[in-house]
């Protein structure tokens, strides 16, 4: 797995420095903040290699349950008239199905609404093959994964701003999986805290300074 360390005055500069070294775009990488101070930010940028996963996927046998779920989703898409292939993401827990093909924007919909509906229908269809409480995640063209990376970057940027100003920041309304990505990105930060306010579908994450008692 390719990775590079980046340094810069800001998070953006540090990430850009690592991206230049790797010759990659933000879309294909995962960012981890190693050190952050008022003068310098150090990040580790790891390239997500879809070809490596695809190779692993063909080499690694997928368990029976995952294969059943995969073929059910493939069948549903066929009935919908969507030309796409479905693969089980290797090592994913819960089972994650990656849908790929051409012009699948309609399958994602506005802010992932159609994708979310597809996931609901898939879970209802495959429910009898799953254990109680077990669910399947559906991703189209890695939209969900990309979105998680994006919101994680937003979270880190917001955290940096909160540390500089001491003021809380309210982010845009997001879906639950996006809010969870933000909470997870910031849970280890000793200086900031995150919480959600408002009602669905306008529920937002607030990133604020962590009080000494917290």
């Amino acid at each position, binding site marked *: 797995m390719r990775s590079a360390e980046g340094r810069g005055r800001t998070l953006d500069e540090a990430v850009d420095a690592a991206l230049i070294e790797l010759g990659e775009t933000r879309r294909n990488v995962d960012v981890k903040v190693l050190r952050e101070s008022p003068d310098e930010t150090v990040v580790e940028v790891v390239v997500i290699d879809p070809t490596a996963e695809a190779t692993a996927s063909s080499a690694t046998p997928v368990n029976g349950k995952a294969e059943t779920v995969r073929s059910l989703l493939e069948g549903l898409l066929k009935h919908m008239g969507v030309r796409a292939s479905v693969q089980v993401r290797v090592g994913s827990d819960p089972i994650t199905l990656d849908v790929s093909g051409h012009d699948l924007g309609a399958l994602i919909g506005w802010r992932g609404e159609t994708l979310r509906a597809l996931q609901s229908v898939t879970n209802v269809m495959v429910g009898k093959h799953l254990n109680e409480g077990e669910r399947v995640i559906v991703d189209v063209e890695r939209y969900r994964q990309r979105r998680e990376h994006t919101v994680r970057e937003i979270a880190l940027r917001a955290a940096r701003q909160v540390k500089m100003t001491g003021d809380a920041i309210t982010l845009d309304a997001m*879906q*639950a999986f996006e809010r*969870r990505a933000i909470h997870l990105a910031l849970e280890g930060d000793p200086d900031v805290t995150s919480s*959600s306010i408002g009602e669905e579908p306008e529920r937002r994450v607030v990133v604020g300074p962590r009080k000494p008692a917290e």
Partner: protein
Amino acid sequence: MSVPAAERIRKAIAVVNAAADGAGDEEITPTEIAEAIRDCLELPEIASIPNVRKYLGEALDATSDGMPADFVAMTLYAALGALREGHSLN
């Protein structure tokens, strides 16, 4: 399509989806889901559109029966689809 009705159904879907996905800092109870669906059922404009009330009723029953959130969500998507279809026919 009736915007207030569509918005209320979308809101109910968002509540159900949030219950299914779980952001980790909240817990949505079946009572909250049922309230969101009842809010949809209160709208007078859905009475004239075939199947919308039926699907909403099914979603409410599914919630009180403890059916999985994805099942409730799918039934609400059906209500939203029926609403859209009803308006395109009118």
